[in-house]
């Protein structure tokens, strides 16, 4: 039996987040897009409302919501502003490795404080010459005595890196890639200025340099060499989240375009009555539903402890492509007004592009899907 409906709790959560997104996030979106200011105030409200740290276990003060509920939150907030959405969601990506590979002491030291006050954390894996190919990372963690590592290297495009209290850092040790939790106040950490990107301006993306940063062995996740596995496993959780955010953007695009087309007149007719416009809307709706269903399936598999690597990649690739495609078509429906910076449409197109790039490009997702197909008998 298949059930596509959300539970009562999930529906109530969706209603609460939608209200927050439309009353607080959406009206602030243009300002944060223009100034690039990190949305501290909004994050504080989101934290107070319990929309952050969704998957932190109850034992450590979190709501332990599960992936599907986290996807619902991500879609709602990103429909209002995906830049602010990703600024808030960066926590989830950083927390993922600790939840997957951390011990109770590490969870208590790093996850619990985030449920007690608004705090941020970042996932620091990408390097200037190692994005999709994580195995190419050149950051090193050298054991200087039995209890301490020294980390050296440069991490690049770190979402939330300028505001994080701690980082999940993937670095090479003698036994291969290893994950570490690094306190952001450690000596030797240099945070770069905010990068100026095409979209999602509210998200604080910086470079973070590690110069002989001393990290105690207690902050190592798992054993040496476990890092790659932990980092990749995190994506099974985080990719549906990113897919949900892309679904949110696609939903906003469809909503804006549909309502506009119903009102705007051209040659004495509403433009929605022209097939050239209405078919675009129909295609947007088809892709949006398909993207959401793929996303929910991936999240459901994860929540039920089933293998979801392929499904997460499928959801992420399809939702990201749908977000971009829908945004381009929605701008077309609004015509010149879609291109104007006074109308909240062009921002969606700028914001949508990054979904095809971060958390593994759309091409990498297809590589993962193919690799899984080849393994299937």
């Amino acid at each position, binding site marked *: 039996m298949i059930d596509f409906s959300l539970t009562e709790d999930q529906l109530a959560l969706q209603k609460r987040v939608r209200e927050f997104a439309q009353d607080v996030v959406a*009206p602030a*979106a243009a300002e944060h897009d223009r100034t690039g200011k990190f949305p501290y105030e909004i994050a504080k409200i989101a934290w107070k409302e319990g929309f952050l740290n969704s998957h932190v276990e109850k034992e450590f003060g979190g709501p332990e919501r599960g992936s599907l509920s986290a996807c619902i939150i991500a879609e709602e907030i990103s429909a209002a502003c995906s830049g602010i959405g990703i600024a808030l969601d960066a926590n989830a990506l950083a927390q993922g490795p600790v939840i997957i590979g951390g011990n109770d002491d590490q969870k208590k030291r790093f996850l619990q404080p985030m449920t007690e006050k608004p705090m941020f954390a970042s996932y620091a894996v990408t390097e200037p010459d190692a994005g999709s190919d994580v195995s190419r990372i050149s950051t090193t963690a050298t054991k200087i005595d039995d209890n301490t590592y020294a980390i050296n290297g440069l991490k690049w495009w770190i979402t939330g890196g300028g505001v994080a209290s701690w980082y999940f850092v993937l670095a090479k040790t003698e036994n291969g890639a290893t994950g570490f939790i690094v306190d952001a106040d450690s000596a030797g950490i240099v945070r770069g200025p905010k990068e100026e990107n095409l979209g999602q301006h509210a998200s604080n993306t910086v470079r973070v340099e590690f110069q002989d940063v001393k990290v105690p062995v207690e902050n190592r996740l798992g054993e040496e060499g476990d890092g790659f596995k932990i980092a990749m496993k995190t994506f099974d959780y985080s990719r549906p989240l990113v897919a949900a955010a892309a679904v949110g953007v696609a939903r*906003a695009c469809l*909503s804006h375009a549909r309502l*506009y087309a119903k009102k*705007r007149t051209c040659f004495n007719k509403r433009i929605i009555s022209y097939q050239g416009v209405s078919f675009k809307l129909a295609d947007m709706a088809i892709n949006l539903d398909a993207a959401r269903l793929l996303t929910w399936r991936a999240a459901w598999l994860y929540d039920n402890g089933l293998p979801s690597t392929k499904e997460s990649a499928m959801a992420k690739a399809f939702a990201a492509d749908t977000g971009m495609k829908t945004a381009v078509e929605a701008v077309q429906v609004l015509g010149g007004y879609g291109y104007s910076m006074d109308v909240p449409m062009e921002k969606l197109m700028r914001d949508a592009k990054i979904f095809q790039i971060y958390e593994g490009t759309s091409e990498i997702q297809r590589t993962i899907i193919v690799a899984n197909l080849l393994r299937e008998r």
Partner: protein
Amino acid sequence: MKLKGKFRKRKNLVICPICHLELSANDVNINGLVVCPVCGAVIEIIESEGQKIPVVHNVETKRPQPLFRLHTIATHFSIGLLPVAMLAQIWLFFARASGELLGNLDLLLPMCFLFLSIVLIGGILTFATGFVDWKRKYRGRNYEIITRKIRWSIVLFILLSFAIFLFWIELFGWSFLTQIFALGVIAKIGHLGGFLVFGK
């Protein structure tokens, strides 16, 4: 969710895509339309995912212009005269303090009073002509900018009257302080008025 302060203010903002003036969603009439006071764009505001999307239906190009520009003249005359009156008071203060008579001070005092009175009369004229312009050019539509201008004008009227009263009973220091506040209010009203001329 109960919204406070700037969150509530932001929620009602929409930008005219023609002249870039920040309009308030509260300005919408019973037909769901708002006419931009600057460029005359007839805009329907649709709400989508918490965002305000303006749909331009028409542009009111032929709108009656203000008669004889009386509002502008009265406004700028008052704005110009208040600092003159204030500078004269400063001069008077220093002249008295130093004991040096740099002219006929007996004449300067009533002159300041006269200037302040003219500013008040000019302010009343500004208000009256502004009201006529609002009826003619803006067809008596409710605009948040104009409502805010009216509110600040009332504050200005009270401040100026009070300043003149204090001047009359020879509490010059307090009168001067009130004039400083009045000057600030004039700047605020002028700032709002600028939106209606140049957009934002």
